[in-house]
């Protein structure tokens, strides 16, 4: 069972959370200025690294905070947390 460290509640079972995929994908400031290709890249194209991956989690059945976690995609180790942001 993956244990996710919520910055507000501490470490809890992953079943209390919703997964929010890759972190750091900001909503474009002016979507209308983007080409179809750039917009598609924002919508659909994500890195899928083997190793450490920064991702978002939502404590849906808890304090309802969105936050960042770094997870190793091979070992499922979890480390460092930063609140907020995309």
């Amino acid at each position, binding site marked *: 069972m*993956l244990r996710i460290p919520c910055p507000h509640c501490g470490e809890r079972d992953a079943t209390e959370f919703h997964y929010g995929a890759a972190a750091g994908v900001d909503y474009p400031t002016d979507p209308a200025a983007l080409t179809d290709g750039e917009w598609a890249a924002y919508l659909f194209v994500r890195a899928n690294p083997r190793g450490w991956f920064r991702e978002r989690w939502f404590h849906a059945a808890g304090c309802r905070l969105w936050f960042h976690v770094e997870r190793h995609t091979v070992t499922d*180790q979890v480390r460092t947390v930063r609140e907020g942001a995309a």
Partner: protein
Amino acid sequence: MSRRLPTGGSRIDRSRPVTITVDGVEVAAYHGDTVASALLAADRPLLSRGIYSGRPRGVMGVGVEDACAYVQVLSGGGEPMVAATTLEVHDGLAVERIAGRGRLPAGDDTTRYDTLYGHAEIAVVGGGLAGLRAAVAAAEDADGARVLILDDGPALGGAAADLPADSAAGRELRDLLTRLDGLEGVTVLTRTTVTGSHGHGRLVALEQRPHGVAKRRLHHVQAVGVVLATGSHERPLVFADNDRPGVMLACAAADYVTRYAVLPGERAVVWTAHDAGLHAAVELADAGTEIVAVLDVRETMAGPLAAALAGRGIALHLGAEVTGTDGSDDESGRLIRVHTTVGSFDVDLLAISGGANPAVELFSHPGGRTRWSDEVAGFVPDVPAPGQVGREVVVGAAAGDQDVVPGWRETLQPPATVFRADAGDPELVFLDPHRDATLADLRRAHAAGLSSVEHVKRFTTIGTGADQGRGFGVLAVGVLAQELGRPIEEVGTTTYRPPYVPLSFALLAGRNRGELSDPVRVSQAHDRVAHAPMEDVGQWKRPWYFPRSTADGLEDLDASVAREVRAVRTGVGMMDASTLGKILLQGADVGVLLDRVYTNLFSTLKVGKVRYGVMCGPDGMVVDDGTTARLSGTDWLMTTTTGNAAAVLDTLEEWHQTEWPGLDIALTSVTDQWAVVAVAGPRSRDVVATLAPQHDWSAEAFGFMDWREAPVAGIPARVLRISFSGELAFELHVPSWYAAALWDAVEEAGAPHGITPYGTETMHVLRAEKGFPIVGQDTDGTVTPHDLGMSWAVSRKKTDFIGMRSLARADARRPDRRQLVGLVPLDGSSRIVEGAQLVAHGADLTAFPVAMAGHVTSAYPSGHDGRPFALALLDGGRDRVGEVLDAVDDLVPLAVRVTGPVSYDEQGARRDG
């Protein structure tokens, strides 16, 4: 003949006789016996038969390492395939011997199973000497860790419990148990097998409670640190005809004496590759078995064990091997003769011991890697997975430690590694008795070009039986290595995965079955409508329709819905709409958020007004719709579809927190705080006026999409003039504890007008006639607001909203996109089927593939005019009104005509009453 010894038996209670039934025959046993020990005591060594070969099989082991003795439990709820070596007896237990595979009992499993959640600072798996040392040390530490000990035996002690009480191990065990007794914060679970180690300190364990109310419990344990003291399993040796009743693991044979006072044989040959087999020979001899020969594959032997055998007059043959066995001709097929390199012996027991496999399964589950150790003659833990470092530790025999039992190591002779691959007729050398897989199967796999242990496992099925290779797995790896001419450390083991022992689905479900399989949500007015047939909408139970008694009996769905529709279209109806999702949005910037999440403009909405909105995902596809009322300068009330409330709230939270945290907004679910009754139909104004006479409810004073606070039948309420049916309609929102009172008041006020309660089916018919789509039924994640004909709800003034950029893509503007249309049957009377495929009229349905132009999303047998109609998604549908197509269900075509999505009151003339 009984093989029960007159004294001894650490696990049985002779004062508590128990009778069980095996294949309909009563078998006497004692409390504490297993089915296997009871049958051995009764001298009935035949326990099962080969799944394919039908060969007689007996008991080889004493615990989870046994690979063949599975029985079908007939008593209680019944259960297929339970290990006889771990199934404890109790009065009334009835079992049946099986051939390799059980049968799922026909009835419901009524046995009670419970699920428990536990937390510990240190979880110790295995309560033998090594585990107890770790547990006591952790609990006696200055910080006094909370310790949970899980052991699969009926009592703590592990192998030490089988050693003499006055031995060094026996004395240490007593000392540890005494110290444990006095410690706070130590929890002990016996008869509890950890079935999986799932990483991050999570263990899942199966607790057997043969005498409990709940027969089994599933424990989910979360620990900070995990100590794996899982011990080792005895490994067999191979030879031809190695699967007969009477061939038994040597230490297991000795354990039957110590634990159950059962003598597993009168005359025995012992064949071993390490000292434990010699210890077992001495124990068996002292218990009364005549040991006619001890064979040791090792060439030299010194020390006290050789002397102990010599002192008992037992012949020890070094460098000797077993080559085959004979069995009896009778039904039992039991062992009668052993052939060896030093002669043949007439015996009824062949005790074999090929060494000890450290129980590394739980270490391996989260990714720990093992290595072969010649010193241990087994695979031992090597490299832990990164997640195990600093969290999990393996101790004792599981770690390959040969010094667990005090004094053992001083006299230890190095074990031999023996994996003979030339042991007689390969068709008779069984490498997985449960799967009936043989050395010949393994050679066939090799001949087919397979060399990976994982491939060989799948080709031969070796290790895939219910014992998951605990008995023969490593042995088979060793034999494969010899066949391949490669060292065993290169071949390696197959991957160990949970569960370590079988878990039944009924146990996993626990009490979450039937009514408790999912939470049930009901409206606060439920007892007023509970007599109606219910429809499941997400977790909610909603009245589906309200059948009336007639002279012909209770109305069916179609008759009831036709009457309910007529009532709303011509008079007045009422429905419990409390399950609507409701979200309270508060803050100075709610308008900004709504402008971004809805496709249309919301920030301009005035207090006292309600607006309908559509929400899209960033990909431009519709995800939900609903209305939002502006309650005040800062407070807004959003309604969502019943099944989508939680998802919409989550989405709003996500956008707010992750993209626009600067906005002043707070979001609260108020679904359960407000009850809603919808009053719909041309006479609804009269009903509301009766309920709230102090207000003017005329269209001029209270227009479409207005809301106001007004006491309704004396209840503080919000009244909204919104309509999901096209008729004049009001939604009455009251604090939910008034739900029943409101329902009663509306019923009473509506009685003079013949007010008719209606359910979800009528609501669906009414909205479908108006062409209002239901998100998730008429949409499927590929549908834009334009596809639904809702371009009017998509702002062209806003600079952005979620999905706007996607809707600007050329693909979103294609004229041949699948669009919402209406359908009527060409014959005016045939029912259209929901989900039917739309194809060209007269298309040859046998000429695959048949081009599909769309599908029916909603279909109803009758609308206001009593005729069937449907909604559908159709390629380029808006330009195809009037066209005739075939709606195909199960290869039966029905000619339908395409219409616009709105089939009733297209001008919207009826909403003001």
